[in-house]
């Protein structure tokens, strides 16, 4: 039988040692009526070959950048992944180990997490990073909850309308059952940045935090300096949410703007798009808030011989110790994905990260200019952007079908989330988009 090594005589021997005659004898406490209805009505087991065929046939029904001109972003990005990444995370010593509760035999995982925490601190220019959370959306929610813990007594949460729509829903879900928290939406201006006047009107001592995308869902880079200044006046936290982690290799990092908590989605850092998961959320903050942080933390220490080693620390914040008083209910996190990101960042390193970020900026801006000049698409927002931008497209749907016929997905229609942005496309261009691909996009939009 599949994956269970027990032979008939193995079972015999074990049953005897236990002192029963049939495995059913071990079901003693289970009410009969449950036993009777327990059979599972599914097909019998398949061979590896059959499973592979089934999976291949499902895979064949999907479309990937390997066969499509691909300009999708919006929170999940198609970036290069050096071969080192999968080579490392597919090592069973990493993939089949559990949460490092026994540090003496888990230094591999623990040191890697410590390295991850350091890398995220450097990338965001923040003082502390946790070991990761589920995704960018839940990380945003956790950040708001964390801010609420720190900012006792305050109740208003100000969300940028340009924050990823799904993230806004997740935050709403997480908050909806907590007493008197009020969500306020801050609109964006024609620059695509947050409406500062509106914000200032809403800001006061009742506000817990302002949550802004950086860059935001429209691809636009907000002026965090201005936002933070506005917040600081009332002791309001500025929380940045970065869905395109790669942008932080080039943009002035949240920490440099003075933000209190910087979170985001790490998929861009060495993890395949995978229909949006698994990747990981990151949460970084100023050191003074470390005891309110959700999720695991790895710290450095020594063993009895003074040898450096790493352990899980500040566990008193966590559910397995603190239970109903824990800073979060998270237990299983996205460990292997944060390892992937660690290998990714170690492989690209200082120079590679920077260079690749600039490649993104270059291709995205050249493409936008061509789409406007050559294909006559309408500009929308005037603010600066990294590798994503919004353009207006007359008769979007006809364009989309003609593009589809040429196997091109040019971007994401914003109308479903932003009724005010009919016929607008969120277009993403990364280092993975080849010249020919971009030419084809421009040509097809130009009606050729």
């Amino acid at each position, binding site marked *: 039988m599949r994956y269970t090594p027990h032979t008939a005589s193995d079972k015999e021997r074990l049953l005897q040692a236990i002192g029963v005659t049939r495995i059913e004898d071990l079901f003693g406490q289970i009410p009969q009526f449950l036993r009777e209805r327990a059979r599972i009505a599914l097909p019998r087991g398949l061979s590896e070959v059959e499973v592979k065929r089934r999976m291949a046939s499902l895979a064949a*029904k999907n479309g990937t950048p390997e066969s499509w001109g691909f300009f999708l972003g919006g929170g999940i990005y198609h970036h290069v992944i050096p071969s080192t990444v999968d080579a490392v995370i597919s090592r069973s010593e990493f993939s089949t180990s559990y949460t490092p509760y026994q540090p003496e035999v888990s230094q*591999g995982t623990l040191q890697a997490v410590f390295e991850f925490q350091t890398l995220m601190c450097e990338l965001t220019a923040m003082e502390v990073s946790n070991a990761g959370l589920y995704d960018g959306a839940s990380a945003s929610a956790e950040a708001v909850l964390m801010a609420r813990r720190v900012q006792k007594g305050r109740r208003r949460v100000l969300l940028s309308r340009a924050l990823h729509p799904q993230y806004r829903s997740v935050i709403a879900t997480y908050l909806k059952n907590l007493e008197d928290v009020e969500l306020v939406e801050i609109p964006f201006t024609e620059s695509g940045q947050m409406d500062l006047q509106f914000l200032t009107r809403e800001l006061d001592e009742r506000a817990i935090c302002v949550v802004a995308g950086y860059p935001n869902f429209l691809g636009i880079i907000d*002026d965090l300096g201005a936002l933070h200044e506005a917040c600081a006046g009332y002791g309001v936290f500025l929380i940045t949410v970065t869905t395109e982690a790669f942008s932080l290799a080039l943009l002035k990092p949240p920490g440099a703007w003075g933000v209190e908590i910087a979170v985001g989605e790490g998929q861009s850092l060495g993890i395949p798009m995978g229909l949006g*998961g698994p990747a990981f959320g990151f949460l970084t903050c100023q050191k003074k808030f470390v005891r309110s942080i959700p999720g695991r933390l790895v710290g450095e220490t020594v063993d009895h011989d003074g040898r450096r080693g790493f352990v899980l620390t500040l566990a008193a914040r966590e559910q397995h110790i603190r239970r109903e008083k824990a800073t979060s209910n998270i237990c299983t996190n996205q460990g292997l994905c944060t390892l992937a990101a660690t290998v990714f960042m170690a492989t690209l390193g200082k120079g590679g990260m920077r260079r690749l970020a600039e490649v993104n900026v270059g291709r995205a801006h050249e493409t936008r200019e061509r789409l406007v000049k050559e294909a006559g698409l309408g500009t929308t927002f005037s603010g600066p952007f990294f590798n994503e931008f919004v353009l207006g497209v007359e008769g979007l749907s006809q364009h989309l079908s003609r593009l589809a016929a040429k196997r091109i997905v040019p971007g994401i229609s914003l109308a479903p989330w932003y009724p005010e942005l009919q016929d607008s496309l969120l277009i993403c261009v990364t280092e993975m988009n080849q010249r020919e691909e971009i030419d084809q996009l421009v040509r097809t939009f130009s009606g050729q």
Partner: protein
Amino acid sequence: MSERSQDSNGRKIAPRLIFETGSPGRSGFFWPEDPKTKSEWIPARFLRGEIEGFPEMGELEVMRHFTRLSHLNYSIEGQFYPLGSCTMKYNPKLNEVVARLPGLSLLHPLAPLPLIQGALELLSDLEGMLAEICGMDHISLQPAAGAQGEMTGLMMIRAYLTTKGNPRRKILVPDTAHGTNPASSTLCGYEVVQVPSNDRGIIEAKKVEEVMDEEVAALMITNPNTFGIFEMDIQAIAEAIHEKGGLIYLDGANLNALMGIAKPGDMGVDVLHMNLHKTFSTPHGGGGPGAGPVGVKKFLQDYLPVPRIIRGNEGYELREDLPNSVGRVRSFFGNFGILVRAYAYILALGSDGLEEASRMALLNANYIRSRLKGHFHVPHPETCMHECVFTDRLQQKQGVHTTDIAKRLLDYGFHPPTIYFPLVVSGAIMIEPTETESPETLDAFIDAMISIAHEAKENPSMVKSAPHTTPVGRLDETLAARKLILRWNPSKAGNDQGKAES
């Protein structure tokens, strides 16, 4: 053997950090073009310089570093990993292969539906399979892990009760419950009321009745519970709860004990979560990722998270417009790559394989239980299900505690069981062998436990000073919490940790 893990006298050397290797200007990454960002594109004040502390290593350095780190890890593929409540079963290689098919790993969640029909078919199939296995009517695959499943489930309960007029205030949680249960309750705005387990390790209907009232939204029960014991009163308990308008939430972390043996859906359970990284063999990855799908009875289906996947006439579609839905708990479709692995696992095992899996899980656990019960104290009389719990009571006389036993096991080459959980018995040792371990492996582990029991009598100090043979000795956790070094920092750079290696 990877890099030097010891000096020429056999003294172990702590590995360097990536920040302590490499050389300025070095990179393991090669990209031909090197454009520069124009200031009319992004004004200089929005830009940073190169990322200060980032490593500068060659590709070979990177591979060596992580290969060496991997050699410091204990893993299922290395050896037996009997962590109670974690279901550390074999993670089939097949699943790793299929999960890496470009047609499944290179999909974009916001791509037009025609480009992800295969993925949606897989998800919809998997929902059906899981519903059948645990006897529920509808499934959502969105939660990223068990804890998020708990939160989602409780939110559905709250939403449902709210439409019924009163969300209620309390959640009943047995004292044997996992920490995520109370933590999730708080997250959903509920207060936790503990239900004591009896001397047989289970909770009784009458105890539940005592605390049950119109302000109790639900009972969160784990079955089999964290002692590995089946909650035999479950039916009566469910009645007591339902009678007063409460719901039953089942923590399905221990589903590995039930497949083909008893369906939660038949126990009066209204909502549950499963841990695909336990019962359905997806790798734990040193902490994750996992997946924690929730299952509900029909009357709760409108409360499930959006989007729901439905079969339309042009293929699979997504429904977002469900007014009663609790909304989104995670972005996109949850941990799709993990769902793919679980799907492949269920295909490979089939009904017969799944049933055999649970049966062998029980057989292995009871074998360990019966062979060790003479040497370690067993808190409860009954045979167990998929895991068994002992305590250090017999060893305490010699001042040997559960931690010591755990650390000493490391010297024998075994990972310790889950310890000090459940909390209700002191010094708990919680052993879950899973079905994928051979009797020979169990015997080897049992022999090690027995000889430690002897050592505890004859040579307690050697047990208390364990481990003696691991890459590092017992680590100072208090120091870690006091000094709180959570990141490498340049000042300590070039410390001679791991000198003379590379």
